[in-house]
């Protein structure tokens, strides 16, 4: 699928623009603070009805305006669909084919996007909590069952931690109830663990392929799922994992009461990324870390293709300047002629021009967008 046309009304620093995009590669060039990220953000918001940069929708409305409007036309194999999203002080309105949708959940999914922004480097460099959050968001998007299991798990975990605190302070003493909470947590923990194991395998397959393409086969990316369940037991089925967790809760019970918190379970999971067998977080160069983050995040492109039958739209914010020529070339070649790509840069010199076949180039200046008519070469 691709976005053939985008109109913005009073969106961030855009008063009014109307842009026609290439189904292949679109390059947005502009100095700092001109509106490049704002434009990518607008496409993201048109797709998901929320921003990747803020939780406060009002920030999207141009200062001193009442509302912001984003409209676009999505082209798919099956035809084209006009989308419209209006953000006002009162909330959001979303239209598909000019018809207002009662629920945002009916709207989302019309346009699929994958965005890579500089902050995504945290998938590799950040804490385990950042990676768990990333995994839960990605997998939650792909599976309603996962979303259900992880949210049940989290709410039981909160109750259990609170109860452990009460036991620790001797405000409670009933261990039968603790046993119930442990069993509940073990049951959902087993479901979450099994789903993470399966999804991570799928994701690893695609990320590995991408990483190889970007590095021209020089680097092999592998994942290691780190769970408290020993590696040789991770292959167990739900029932087997459930029993493993139960045993862990039994053996750790006195420690958990002493510390007043849950020490066992997938809320302590992590995933390690290895490049040629070495942990890239500790031993990788800047470029290797960036490439790893890209490969992991962009694995979603192929996962989505597998699920929906169509490639999503790819948004790359400030990515190229950080990669060497070889990695740039192969990153773009991988998606060329398959995935509509938007990339931002402060100068064309950052882009190896000859590698991109006929990109459509736009200059972004203080809230205006102009197509560069002469083809770069």
């Amino acid at each position: 699928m691709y976005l053939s046309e985008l109109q913005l009304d009073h969106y961030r620093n855009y008063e009014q623009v109307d842009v026609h995009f290439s189904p292949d590669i679109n390059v947005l060039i502009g100095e700092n603070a001109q509106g490049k990220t704002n434009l990518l953000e607008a496409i993201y918001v048109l797709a998901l009805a929320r921003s990747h940069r803020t939780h406060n929708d009002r920030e999207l409305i141009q200062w001193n305006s009442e509302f912001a409007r984003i409209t676009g036309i999505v082209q798919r194999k099956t035809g084209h669909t006009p989308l419209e999203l209006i953000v006002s002080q009162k909330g959001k309105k979303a239209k598909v084919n000019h018809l207002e949708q009662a629920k945002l959940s009916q709207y989302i999914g019309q346009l699929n996007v994958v965005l890579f922004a500089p902050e995504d480097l945290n998938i590799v460099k950040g804490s385990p909590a950042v990676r768990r959050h990333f995994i839960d968001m990605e997998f939650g998007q792909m599976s309603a069952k996962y979303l259900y299991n992880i949210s049940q798990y989290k709410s039981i975990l909160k109750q259990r931690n609170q109860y452990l605190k009460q036991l620790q302070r001797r405000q409670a003493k009933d261990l039968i109830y603790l046993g119930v909470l442990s069993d509940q947590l073990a049951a959902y923990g087993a479901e979450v663990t099994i789903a993470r194991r399966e999804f991570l395998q799928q994701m690893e397959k695609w990320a590995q392929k991408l990483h190889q393409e970007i590095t021209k086969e020089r680097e092999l990316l592998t994942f290691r799922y780190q769970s408290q369940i020993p590696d040789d037991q991770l292959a167990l089925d739900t029932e087997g994992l459930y029993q493993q967790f139960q045993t862990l809760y039994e053996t750790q019970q006195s420690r958990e009461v002493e510390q007043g918190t849950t020490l066992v379970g997938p809320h302590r999971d992590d995933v390690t990324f290895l490049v040629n067998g070495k942990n890239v977080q500790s031993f990788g160069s800047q470029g290797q870390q960036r490439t790893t983050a890209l490969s992991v995040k962009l694995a979603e492109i192929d996962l989505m293709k597998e699920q929906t039958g169509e490639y999503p739209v790819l948004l790359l914010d400030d990515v190229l300047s950080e990669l060497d020529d070889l990695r740039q070339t192969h990153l773009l070649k991988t998606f060329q002629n398959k995935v509509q790509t938007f990339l931002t840069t402060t100068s064309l010199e950052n882009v190896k021009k000859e590698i991109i076949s006929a990109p459509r180039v736009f200059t972004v200046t203080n809230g205006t967008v102009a197509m560069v008519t002469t083809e770069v070469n």
Partner: protein
Amino acid sequence: MQYPEPIAKLIESYMKLPGIGNKTATRLAFYTIDMNEDDVTSFAKNLISAHRDLHYCSVCGNITEEDPCEICRDTTRSQDMILVVEQPKDVMSLERMNDYHGLYHVLHGVLSPIEGKGPDDINIANLIKRLQKTPAKEVIIATNATPEGEATAMYISRLIKPAGIKVTRLAHGLSVGSDIEYADEMTLLKAVEGRQEI
């Protein structure tokens, strides 16, 4: 300027109700002044009577005018079946179904440490006492399908199962008459998992 004392007091009373702040309370107080005398009198009477004449049944915990309640006193109902619910309003809905003829037990909540509700804070001890006095054949637990509802069901089951009482859980899933097309994915998943042989 200050409100005359009767109005100020009435505003204060309204503000004791949940979800009512100063503004709404003031509006309600001035409205009350304009109401006709009979309506106000019966309003006041109803308030007092709801409080004075309603009690919790000492057997099942349901709200009632007389203790024990009508259901607990009804000897034509099967005495060896107890259906456990979270709230008095759940008894009302089940009674409206007119299909269940056993007894009830109202928990007044579910176990939730976050809300300060432990095993001693909901009506579980009375259920155990009741079963020790007159053992039932079956206890059906109909708490909601929330994690807290499930945990409460499991907890009760662990307390009473050793006594040889059959414990069942009310099936959840698609409600009767609901349209599959409009059910969310998880409800469907649950309904499929909980399918029964016919």
